[in-house]
């Protein structure tokens, strides 16, 4: 296993990049410690797959270096990097048994049979494939095939890093939660450095100790699940994590304090008032009340355990989560904001925290 260093990485798919928008990866500089569970989270096109391909060696970055345990591997081809990868779709040999599929990466490297047997059985037990070892892979359902794929990634204990690229895409929703938590459990057992790439917040937050949130080729925040939920460093993180996401409401700054439509809103931070300023507050921390910001309730969606209430302050949409049982009706109302969970953002970034 290895610690991984990404030093001043930039990548452009065009031959002569001249402006920031020419870069699929803008500037990445980070260190991942040995044995950690990391997730790269972001929407399609955010650069997460580019970054993954650079780490695996499928792509040489335009600028910067990749270090595995302080050794520069930037120019090494994938085969020499000693990594394992699990892809969106199962990569297995249909004609082989489950056992032989799992044993393949080990036999390929000349590992002796007693060790192969021990390791295959360990991994099969962890993935609950131990009852299927003698079956041909061809007849198995998609989730079992993907478990074999994962097993092939996990079976070698000498790899630098195991990378998962949207591994649960083909899995039925009602089986996803099982595999999601299975992977987390496996990380605890095998102590490998793992990198998990996904656009799904639940997968990322469930799996990783540290989540790297990306947007437009840039890292917008690196943090634990709690940090990402409680103190988003950027409005994008607030919006992307949580469902519905954080409300982002344009505001004016007077003497460092936030004013929304001329009403003062108490916040946890203050701001200089330079640039575009917005108030960020999650729907969980907004309540309907008798006083506060005047709004119109325009829509109420009952999702069972709470209601998602859509309000408008002028033409700005603000969502509120209302617990089951509390009365709500369409029409005029007011909003109160929890000051400890309301924050000012300047040009997208949490005011006073720009990294």
């Amino acid at each position: 296993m290895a610690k991984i260093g990404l030093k001043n990485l930039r990548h452009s798919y065009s031959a002569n990049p001249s402006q920031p928008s020419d870069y699929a990866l803008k500037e990445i500089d980070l260190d991942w410690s040995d044995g950690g569970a990391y997730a790269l989270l972001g929407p399609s096109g955010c650069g997460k797959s580019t970054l993954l391909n650079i780490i695996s060696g499928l792509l040489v970055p335009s600028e910067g270096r990749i270090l595995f345990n302080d050794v520069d591997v930037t120019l090494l081809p994938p085969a020499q990097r000693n990594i394992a990868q699990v892809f969106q779709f199962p990569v297995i040999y249909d004609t082989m048994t489950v056992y032989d599929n799992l044993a393949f990466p080990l036999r390929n490297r000349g590992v002796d049979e007693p060790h192969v047997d021990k390791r295959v059985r360990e991994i099969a037990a962890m993935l609950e494939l131990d009852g299927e070892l003698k079956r041909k892979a061809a007849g198995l359902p998609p989730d079992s095939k993907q478990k074999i794929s994962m097993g092939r990634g996990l079976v070698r204990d000498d790899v630098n890093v195991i990378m998962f690229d949207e591994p649960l895409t083909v899995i039925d929703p009602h089986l996803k939660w099982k595999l999601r938590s299975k992977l987390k459990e496996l990380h605890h057992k095998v102590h490998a450095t793992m990198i998990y790439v996904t656009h799904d917040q639940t997968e990322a937050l469930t799996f990783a100790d540290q989540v790297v949130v990306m947007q437009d080729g840039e890292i917008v925040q690196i943090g634990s699940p709690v940090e990402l939920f409680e103190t988003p460093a950027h409005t994008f993180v607030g919006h992307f994590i949580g469902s519905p996401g954080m409300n982002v409401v344009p505001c004016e700054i007077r003497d460092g304090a936030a004013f929304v439509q001329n009403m003062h809103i108490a916040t946890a931070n203050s701001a200089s008032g330079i640039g575009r300023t917005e108030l960020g507050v999650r729907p969980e921390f907004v309540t309907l009340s008798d006083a506060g910001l005047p709004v119109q309730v325009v829509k109420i969606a009952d999702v069972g355990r709470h209601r998602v209430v859509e309000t408008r302050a002028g033409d700005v949409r603000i969502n509120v989560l209302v617990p089951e049982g509390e009365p709500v009706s369409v029409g005029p109302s007011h909003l109160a904001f929890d000051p400890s969970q309301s924050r000012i953002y300047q040009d997208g970034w949490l005011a006073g925290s720009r990294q």
Partner: protein
Amino acid sequence: MTLELRNVTKRVGVDMHIHKTDLTLADSGFNVLLGATNAGKTSLIKLMAGLEQPTTGEIWMNGKNVTGISPQKRNISLVHQFFVNYPNMNVFENIASPLRVAGVKSSEITRRVNEAAEILRLGPMLKRKPSELSGGQQQRTALARAIVKESELVLLDEPLANLDYKLREELRDQLPALFAGRGAIVVYATSEPTEALLLGGHTATIYKGRVTQFGETTATYRMPQDLNTAEVFSDPPINTAVVLKQGKDFVLNEQVKWRGTGEANALADGQYTVGIRPHFVTPNAVAAGETSITGVVQITELSGSESVAHFGIGGGQNWVALSNGVQPYQIGTEHTFWIDTSRCLYFTPDGRVAA
């Protein structure tokens, strides 16, 4: 406007894909078909579209028997999970295609395509080919085509399943308004209970080829008439266990027993299955009279704003607890949870609701 399935069955070989179904759908709000993969949602949609013929029974549209009439001769639109567009046509022509086939005059086509493109924010993309679009834009193109056609029946078969979840959130939010007031019957198939709740309207729960219940979405969710419906309409899965009613008490095991409330009090002594949704099993007591249950946490999950814990309740069975925020669960350690017993549903041994 109504679509009626009268005594419809569908048998393929020896397999009953759809058991006898009577269903009347109207044009007020969405009609959601909710069920797991292979429950029969797509079979029902194909029967409604006329792409497949029922083995027995009839399909009536606006009081007219349309059984056996080909899909081309019915005024329907169908949007699939996979984005289906003509790769050689630009977005404008893709949206216009059903109107061209129908011989609508050119100026009218331009007006209707532009209107639909405006609603779906495809205005700037009209000259692009599908290959130059993101997944979300491709699916919006398919939806726009369904809108311009002004069909009497719009069938949406998991249309958002292949999109990033943030995009899914956005489109799901817009879809009901998009079709409101257009006089079309809209049928929407999904495997996600939360999606059904957010879409509102009416929901039919489908379990192994049977419509187990049909009614207003929130009523179906809150008042399931049988255990299958409760299970289909719960995410995370509803917790169940066999309990014994003895006098005033419901007994799960020696440690966990509670007094019945309301109708449950009047149930005869004997064996029942209790059903309790995960958000009524929480790590902190929220109401008086709650019963505690202790178990070892097996699995935890984070969605960003909510935490899920799977814990053992004995007998190899797991329950799920769902609560707001990020909870500090430790896998492998014992935690105590609180059951809001006033929210328990009780089912008879044959699965009918008892209280």
